[in-house]
């Protein structure tokens, strides 16, 4: 078998398009953002090298602190909720007939995209005439909160939208994971007299753990990237109440033209996400159970 030389050539040839794309549109920008984060530049004038000053500025910048806090709060609200509800729905669907129809409906929001849905939710949550508040008034006789225009409610409102958008995806993945668990485990347990809750804890949870791990990582990382809804629904407001990390980067870079500082914020974001992912992988060794 004459493999060797021509194979190497073919290998690299097949790899070429992806390779070019990787280099120019992914690796180069990554290196570049680190370099930029150590400069002061407005896009037109002279580039000035400032070392770690941008990072020092970030550590004391109240706006950046708010952005971090808001992002964390958003993540805390939307991640566990989305995962738990997605799992519950998947479990329910696994036990009833008519799964296909439900699947279609629950997955619908996921395909519709953020902008149109965000606008619809703006109308739904309109403090004076939106569906939500008018029914709150009708049913409970109370004046509902000002939702997107109230600093205390704006992040929870955006979280609600994100959970609504993401449930379908979580449900589909969990359902696939659940269906991969062999019936025989449950049957054997039932014969041994295990109750439903015991079966859930000792069979479902461990055998579903790779899926759960996957969904958790993806959901957490996605929650840190939230942007579309914020730009469309609130513009970071009211005040700074919904200013999140990516919006902060976007704002500083493309509205204020401070490329150095916003790059520093972007580097920060990258390090946060990297840390979370590595931490998750470490923790997963203890609770994720891989078969075979």
């Amino acid at each position: 078998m004459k493999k060797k030389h021509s194979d190497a050539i073919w290998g690299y040839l097949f790899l070429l398009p992806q390779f070019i794309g990787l280099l120019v549109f992914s690796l180069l920008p990554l290196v570049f953002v680190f370099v930029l984060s150590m400069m002061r530049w407005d896009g037109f004038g002279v580039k000035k090298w400032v070392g770690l000053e941008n990072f020092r500025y970030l550590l004391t910048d109240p706006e950046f602190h708010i952005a971090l806090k808001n992002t964390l709060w958003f993540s805390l609200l939307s991640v566990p909720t989305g995962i738990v509800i997605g799992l519950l729905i998947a479990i329910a669907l696994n036990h009833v007939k008519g799964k296909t129809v439900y699947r279609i409906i629950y997955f619908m929001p996921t395909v519709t995209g953020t902008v149109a849905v965000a606008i619809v939710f703006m109308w739904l949550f309109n403090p004076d005439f939106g569906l939500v508040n008018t029914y709150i008034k009708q049913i409970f006789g109370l004046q509902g909160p000002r939702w997107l225009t109230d600093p205390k409610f704006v992040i929870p409102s955006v979280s609600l939208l994100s959970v609504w958008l993401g449930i379908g995806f979580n449900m589909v993945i969990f359902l696939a994971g659940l269906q991969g668990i062999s019936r025989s485990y449950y049957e054997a347990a039932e014969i041994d007299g295990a109750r439903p809750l015991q079966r859930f804890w000792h069979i479902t949870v461990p055998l579903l753990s790779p899926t759960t791990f996957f969904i958790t990582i993806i959901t957490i990382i996605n929650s840190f990237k939230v942007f579309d809804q914020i730009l469309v629904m609130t513009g970071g407001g009211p005040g700074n109440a919904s200013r999140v990390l990516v919006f902060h980067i976007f704002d500083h870079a493309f509205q204020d033209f401070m490329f150095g500082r916003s790059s520093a914020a972007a580097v920060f974001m990258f390090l946060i996400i990297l840390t979370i992912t590595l931490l998750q992988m470490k923790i997963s060794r203890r609770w994720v159970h891989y078969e075979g």
Partner: protein
Amino acid sequence: MKAKPIQSVALHTGLLFGAFVMVIPFIWMVSSSLKDISQIFIIPPKWIPDPFVWGNFKRSLQALPFDTAYFNSIYISAVVVVVQLFNCSFAAFAFAKIRFPLRNAWFVLFLSMLMVPEQVTIIPLYLIMEKIGWLDTHWSLIVPPALFNAFGVFLLRQFFLTIPNDLEEAAIVDGASLPVIYARIMLPLVKPALSALGIFTFLYMWNNFFIPVIFLSSPETFTVPLMLNMFKGLYITDWTLMMAGSTIALLPALIAYLFTQRYVIEGIAMTGIKG
């Protein structure tokens, strides 16, 4: 596992309530878009418009060139999907089936790029696009994802790995070269993975807002999400118009989804299992 009748009823009740919550915003959107502006402020809200007003749709289409936006969204998404499927399968095939020096090192590099969010590299990417004159053109939207998609390479490689080497070896004995092996043997065997990736990518390109909103500034270049956002900026106080615009932006995608949902859902499930 089918539950006992009582449990079944309870589960269905819960699921129906949830389904209701999923669907209500869409119904309300359509209902509002068919109303006259004066009807919007009636309390309690009327679900069925009386009378039906179709004019909002006409006004939306006249206000902004949604048809151009649709054309842009469709052709950009389609081009990226087709080119990307080729490029990803080339690389995945190479990683899975060809032995070449430094193969593992390059693959590890690919995988690590998966950890880098586009929000982190957007600033330098913008500056690069500005340098090569691609800002405000569709090239900036099409070329990067068409050329590079680490996730797609990873996914397809998983599938290629499941194809037994005997097929390849038999073909080599018959004198086939690598490109022929790729085209005649490998590619047909990974069709389900290709369609799953294609759907995934199409959805991503169709709904992408972050990249276009930063790279594009001329309305003729806008994709549907951008057009809708501009619409919102101009007409936000006219809610019936806004709902009509949103319906125009959403409904075709929703209908396309209803026709293809089996492939979409199963494709997403497949990427989840392999990922």
